[in-house]
C-alpha cells in the first residue's frame, strides 16, 4: 500500500469490501474478512493511515471520502455480526475458556479505622433514638472542661481527670487552657447555645495525663450523650442505655446499672454488661467481678443546668460518656489499647 490513496482507490476498496462481506457465511469468515479490511494491516486501515501523508488539499478530499467509506463498511459489518451472533458454537466458546481459579486483577482495598467504625456504629444506634451527632473543640477552657460541670478549681474530683495543660496563659498569667479530658464540656456548650429539647451525641478525641498500658492510652476517643427536656427521667436513661448496650453487644447481654459518682450528674450511674468471656462467673477480662464497665452516666446535675440557664425545676435530663476504643476492644476481643494508635496496617486491615 505504498501508493498514495485517492478518492477512487477508497471507493474501489470500499465496494470490494462490501461485496465480499455479502458473501461471508459464518462468524469465523466474518472475522477473517474483518482482519483483511479493518485489522491492523487491513486494506481500509492502510488507506486511512496513509491520508496523513497527502498534501493538504488531497488530504481533505480523500480523508472525507475515507471516513465516509469506513462508516459505511462499519455499519454493514455490524449488521452481519448481528446475524451471526446467535450462531456462536459451543466449540468456539470452549476455545475461549480461561482458568477461573487465577486470582482476579487486584483492586486495592481500603479500610476505615476500627475507632471510626465503632464511632459510626454508636452514633447510628443513637441516631435511631433521635440523637444528632455534633463535635466540639479538643483544646478547651478549664471553664467548660471542669467549672461548668460542677468541678470548681481545687475540687478533689479533679483527681479523676489527669489533665494536660496547654502552655497558653490567659490575661492573668494563669493556665486556663487544657486538652479536654472528656467530651463532657460539650454538654455545657450545647446547652448554652440551644434551648431544650436537646438530644445529641458528641464523638471526639480526649486526652488524659496517664501512663500508657494495655488498657490505658493518653489519647482516647469518647462518645458523649445528652438528652434534656421537660419529662426525661432516670427510667428513660436506663431504657435508652439498655437499648444501646444490647444493640451494640448483642441481645443476649445483661446490663447492670449501679450507683457511681461523677460531679456533673446526680444520681450517677455506672453501666456494665455481663462478661462475655466468663458469662458472669468472674475471670481475668472482667477483673473477677463478672461485669465489664462500658460507660458512666447519670441525670444531669441541677448545678450544670443552672449554669447554662436551664431551670432545673422544669428541665431534667441524662448524660453519658463512653470510651470508644474500650467498646471496640470488647466487641473485637482486642487485648491491648495501644494497637489503636500504632497504625500498623496488619492490625488496621482486619476491621
Amino acid at each position: 500500500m505504498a501508493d498514495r490513496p485517492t478518492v477512487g482507490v477508497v471507493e474501489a476498496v470500499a465496494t470490494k469490501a462490501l461485496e465480499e462481506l455479502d458473501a461471508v457465511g459464518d462468524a469465523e469468515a466474518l472475522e477473517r474478512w474483518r482482519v483483511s479490511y479493518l485489522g491492523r494491516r487491513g486494506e481500509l486501515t492502510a488507506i486511512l493511515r496513509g491520508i496523513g501523508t497527502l498534501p493538504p488539499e488531497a488530504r481533505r478530499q480523500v480523508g472525507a471520502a475515507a471516513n465516509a467509506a469506513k462508516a459505511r463498511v462499519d455499519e454493514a459489518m455490524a449488521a452481519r455480526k448481528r446475524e451471526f451472533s446467535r450462531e456462536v458454537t459451543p466449540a468456539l466458546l470452549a476455545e475461549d475458556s480461561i482458568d477461573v481459579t487465577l486470582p482476579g486483577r487486584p483492586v486495592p482495598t481500603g479500610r476505615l479505622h476500627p475507632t471510626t467504625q465503632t464511632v459510626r456504629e454508636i452514633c447510628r444506634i443513637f441516631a435511631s433514638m433521635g440523637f444528632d451527632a455534633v463535635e466540639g473543640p479538643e483544646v478547651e477552657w478549664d471553664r467548660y472542661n471542669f467549672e461548668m460541670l460542677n468541678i470548681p478549681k481545687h475540687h478533689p474530683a479533679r483527681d479523676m481527670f489527669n489533665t494536660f495543660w496547654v502552655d497558653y496563659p490567659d490575661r492573668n498569667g494563669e493556665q486556663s487552657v487544657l486538652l479536654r479530658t472528656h467530651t463532657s464540656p460539650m454538654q455545657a456548650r450545647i446547652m448554652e447555645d440551644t434551648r431544650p429539647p436537646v438530644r445529641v451525641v458528641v464523638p471526639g478525641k480526649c486526652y488524659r495525663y496517664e501512663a500508657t498500658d494495655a488498657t490505658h492510652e493518653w489519647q482516647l476517643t469518647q462518645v458523649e450523650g445528652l438528652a434534656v427536656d421537660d419529662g426525661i427521667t432516670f427510667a428513660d436513661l436506663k431504657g435508652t442505655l439498655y437499648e444501646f448496650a444490647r444493640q451494640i453487644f448483642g441481645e443476649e447481654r445483661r446490663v447492670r446499672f449501679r450507683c457511681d459518682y461523677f460531679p456533673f450528674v446526680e444520681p450517677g450511674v455506672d453501666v456494665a454488661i455481663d462478661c462475655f468471656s466468663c458469662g458472669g462467673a468472674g475471670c481475668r477480662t472482667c477483673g473477677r467481678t463478672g461485669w465489664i464497665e462500658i460507660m458512666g452516666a447519670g441525670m444531669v446535675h441541677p448545678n450544670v443546668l443552672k449554669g447554662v440557664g436551664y431551670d432545673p425545676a422544669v428541665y431534667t435530663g441524662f448524660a453519658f460518656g463512653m470510651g470508644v476504643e474500650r467498646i471496640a476492644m470488647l466487641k473485637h476481643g482486642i487485648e491491648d489499647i495501644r494497637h489503636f494508635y500504632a497504625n500498623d496496617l496488619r492490625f488496621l486491615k482486619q476491621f
Partner: protein
Amino acid sequence: MKAPLSWITQYVPVDLPPQEVAHRLTMAGNEVDDITVTGDWDRERVVVGRVLEVKRHPNADRLTIPTVELGDGKTAAVVCGAPNVAAGQKVAFAHEGARLFSARSGRVEALRPANIRGVVSSGMVCSEIELGLGDDHGGILVLDDDAPVGTPLADYLGDAVLDMNVTPNRPDCLSIMGIAREVAALTGREAVEPDSSYLESEVPIEDVVDIEVVDTDLCRRYTASLVTGVSIGPSPKWLQDALIKADQRPINNVVDVTNYVMLEYGQPLHAFDFDKVKDAKIVVRRARAGERLLTLDGEDRALVPPMLTIADSSDAIGLAGVIGGAETQMTEATTAVLLESANFDAVNTRRTGAALRLSTGASYRFERGLRAELAPLALRRATKLILEVAGGQAAKGIVDVYPGEEEPPAITLTRERIRKVLGIDPDVSETAGALKSLGFAVVEPVGGAVAVKVPYWRTDVAIEDDLVEELARIRGYDSIPTTAITTAIPHHSPQPMLDMKDRMRDVLAAAGMCEMISYSLTSPGELDGAAALGNGPEPLMIANPMSGEQSCLRTSLRAGVLSCLASNLRVSRNEGVRTFEIGRVYIPRGKSAEYGLPEEREMLVGVMAGPREPVSWGTRSGDMDFYDAKGVLESALAQIRLEAAFEKDTDPSLHPGRTARVSSGSVALGVVGEVHPSVLERFGIEDAAVALFEIDVESLLESSQEAGGYSPPNRYPQSSRDLALTLPASVPSAAVQALLERHKLIARSIPFDVYSGAELPPGKKSISYRVVFQSEKGTLTAEQINNAQRDLLRRLRQELGAELRGADS
C-alpha cells in the same frame, strides 16, 4: 480504703457472706474492688486450743510433746518443734486432714499423721507460716488469752478485707464507721458508734493550754484534749492488727491511736508532745513568708502563705491538716500529749498538699471536705483510747474553738421531684424509711414531702436531688423501670463538617486507602522533620508533657502520616502502602489565650508508596508516584462534585518538580506532590517515591457542590479523532486541554499517550489526545469536524506552539 470486715462488725452486725456485702456496697456506689480473705481455714479442723502441759520428746532434744485442750473435754498430744511453746498458751491447733501451707513443699497440703522419731503425731500446733498469716516460722503462733478454746480459728482470727474504691464525694466512706453505716442501711441493721467515755482529772484544760485560732476562715473548728503521764511504747496487738489490716504501719501507741481513730471516724487527728510546745500555746495561723518547718518525714520545708500552720508562741510546729512537725512528735520521752482534732479548709489543704507535692491520709480527707461536728467526737474517742493504751490522765474538758457554729443542712424531698427525676412514685413512708436507714433525721414525714436533716458525717448531700440519689441507691437502681424517652425529638441540625469527613473517609477507603489515626501531640523536632515547622505557625506547647516526643500540639498531619508510612513500608515491601488520616491541626490565634482557643482545622493527608499492585499474574507493574496520588484525589473530589485545578507549585516538604497546588475556583484546597527526598531521609524511607496529598477539609465544604442542576444526555453521536501533538516541553498539558475544550464542538479531550524520547527535537515533548467531537444541535458531519480540527490546529500552533506530529515532515 482497706476495710476489714472484723472492724466493720464492731459497729454493725454482719450476717451475710463478704461477697454479698461487697456486692451491695458496690451497687450502692461504694465499689469494692477486691476482697482479700485471710484465714479461710477449715472450720472443723483448725481450732483454738490451750496448751495444758509440755513434755520432752523421748528421742529428740529439740522436739517437745505439748498436750492441747480442744474444748468439750477433748485433748490431743502432738510433736512440736517450736522453741516457744509453753503451758497455758492459747494456740491454733490443726487436726489431721486440715489443709495448710507446707514450707517444705511450698504448697497447700492436707495434714497427714506422721511418725516423728518414734512418736506418732496426728495434728499440729501451727505457726504463722502454715496458716498463711506471715512468714515468721521462729515459733508457734500464740493467740491472745481471750481466744475461746474449741472455736474454729476462722471465727476468731479469720477476716475479709474489703478494698474499697471510695469516690471523691464520700469522705465519710474513708472511715470504717462510714462503711458500717452504709452496710447497716443496705442490710436493714443499725450501726452503733463506739464508746468515747473516759474519766477526767480535776485540772480544767483551759488552765493548762492556750489555743488561739487566728485564721478562722481556714480553720472552722479546733478541738483539743490533753493527756499527761502517758508512756510511749508499742501498741497492743489488737490495735496493731487492725492498723496492719487497714494498710497502716504501727508506730507507737499514741500515734497508732490517732491513726486508728482517723480510720474509724474519718477525722484526722494529731498528737503534739505538749512539753515541746513553747509557752503551752497553740496558734492556728497562716504561714509567714520565709518560715520553715522540719516535718515528720524529715523534710525541711519552706512554707508560704496562705499555707495554714499550727504554731506555738513563736514557730510553726505543724502544717495544718497535712503533716506534723518533727520537733513536737511523739518520742519515748514524751509524757504529755496535746491531741488535736480540727476542721481545716478543704481547698487550702489541697493547695498546700499540691504545692509541697505531699498527700497524706489527713490531707486526703480534709481536701474532700469534712463536717465540723466530727472533730470533738473523734477527739473524745481518741482520748479514751490513749488513756487505755498509753495510760495517763486526761485534763478536764476539751478545748473547742468553733466561732461559726452551723446547723446541719435541712432539705425537703418531695414526691413530685422523685417522680420527675426517677420516673417512679414510692410512697412517703418508703422514702422516709430509706433516708432514716442512712442516718438522716426525718423531721416531718407528712404530706407529699419528707423533710430531713443531714447527718454529721455526710458532706455530699446538699440539694434535693442528692436525696433522690440516696433513695435510688438504697432501693437499688434495679428497682427503677426502663422506659423509652417519650418527649419530642428535637429538630435535626445539619452537621456539614461531620458529613464531609465521613464522605471523604468513605471515598478514600473505596479508593483503596487505609484510614489511620495518630496522636495529636508531637514534638517540634518531628514537625521539623516533615518541614512543617519554620514554614507554618508556631505550635502550642504542653505545659506538663509526659515526654519530649509529645510536647506540642501538631500543626500538620504530615509527620504522623509519614512516620506511619515508614513503619509500614518496613514490614510490607511486597505491597504498596496507601494510608490517610483525617484529623485536626491546632493553630494558635495569637501569642496567648487572650486571643481565644486555637483554631482546630480539619485536615486530610493521604500518602502512598511502593508497588502499585501486589505481585500478580495480571499486574500493571511499577511503583506509585505523583499521578497515583493525583488520581485518587481527583476521584475523591469528583465524588463530591468538585472539579479541581492543578497547577505547578512548590512546598517545603515536597519535590520541587513534582508538586501541584490544588484549587477549585478561587478556593485553595491543598497540595499534591511527591515528598522531598530530604524529608524521606528524615523519616528513614529509602528507595521509594512517596506521593502525598493534603487537603483542608473546610475548603471542600466551601467549594463542593450538592447535586443540583441536571442536563439530559446528549442524543447525538460522538466522533473521536486522535491528535498526536509535538509541543514545547514547558507547555502544560492542561493548557492544551483547556484550549481544545473551549471549542463548542468538543465534548472532551483525553491525553492518552505521552512521549518525550530522543527522537523529538530538544525542548519538545509529544502528547497524543483523543478529541471527542459532539454537538447538541445535531449529528456532526465529517466536514464540520474537519473544519473544527483545522481551526484547533491553527490555534494550538499560534497560542501554544504545538504542531501535529509528522505534519511538517
